[in-house]
């Protein structure tokens, strides 16, 4: 438990140091994610554990636990909505409309692109095989 958490925090720290030290636009935790993924991949290649066994390692258990309760982590920042009372009264309806419309458009554009490109690739490789 402590070992797993330490590894997660250690890679986040490494990411923050790199992001700030080099002035990168990439956020520290994202760099930490890439670093940990590379380290785990390397360990799997060396045969320390199989890809399927990664969740049974110390860091794997800590990660699975944390990701299982991801939702609650957003509650403290979300409660900050109580500070925006005035803005919500004045522009609440327009804000909600913009957020809903933009989110729907984004979801549709993203999923269509994903599925479209996947089909295109499948058709091309299917044509080559056949």
């Amino acid at each position: 438990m402590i070992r797993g958490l330490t590894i997660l925090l250690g890679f986040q720290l490494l990411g923050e140091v790199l992001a700030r030290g080099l002035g990168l636009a990439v956020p520290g935790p994202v760099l930490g994610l890439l670093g940990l993924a590379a380290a785990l991949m390397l360990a799997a290649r060396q045969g320390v554990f199989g890809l399927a066994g990664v969740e049974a390692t110390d860091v794997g258990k800590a990660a699975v636990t944390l990701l299982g309760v991801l939702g609650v982590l957003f509650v403290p920042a979300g409660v900050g909505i109580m500070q925006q009372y005035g803005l919500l009264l004045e522009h609440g309806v327009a804000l909600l409309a913009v957020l809903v419309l933009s989110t729907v458009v984004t979801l549709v554009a993203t999923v269509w692109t994903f599925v479209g490109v996947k089909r295109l690739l499948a058709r091309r490789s299917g044509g080559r095989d056949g």
Partner: protein
Amino acid sequence: MAERFDLWVYLSASPLLWLTLTLAVWLLVDAIVQAVGRNPLANPVLISILLVAALLVATGTPYATYFAGAQFIHFLLGPATVALAVPLVRHWPIVRENLLPMLAALGVGSVVAVGSAVGLAVLFGLPEGVVTAIAPKSVTAGVAMAITSSFGGDPALTAVLVISTGVIGAVIVTPLMNAMGIRDYTARGFAVGLASHGIGTARAFTVDPVAGLFAGIAMGLNAVVTALIVPLLLR
């Protein structure tokens, strides 16, 4: 009576009360949401936020006092992002298989997310401060707040818009994808993670582990891409 008041004065200002309360409210809401079969409309993040906010307003507790306790939960957002490395490695073969569709969807999705938010905000006549704060709304809170700050915007307002976007996406995604007839969980997950960051990812993990993984990947990638394109669009 005076003693009881003293106790309240002590507790309401100590981190312990609001930390415990946030977790207790979450457990209660989560149990109720599970009882109604994880209906997408019963979003546990939204319900918990509203309940805690109502409690704070009812007791006249300032948000800063609350956050002094709840920040210990908030802090875990960082290690939770790093934690996505584990499902990424676990499901690496399926990720590699979907690399090209992912990159294409990332390019289109991130531009549409920022462009539609800014365009609609201007169209609906929202003030300039809101337009700046709404641009990175699809990106995870910490990164979005940093982007807005670098343009002299209000990071607190951005946090609220980001979390609202997360909740909206988490509520809409399942009925929308079902209506569109999309059954590919890699694609569904990727879309909700891109549009609605961690709250969308939390929802995706409750639906399907692979959807959750692709949501998490999209969240991480979109944080990077949005940090690069918002400066181009707002300048």
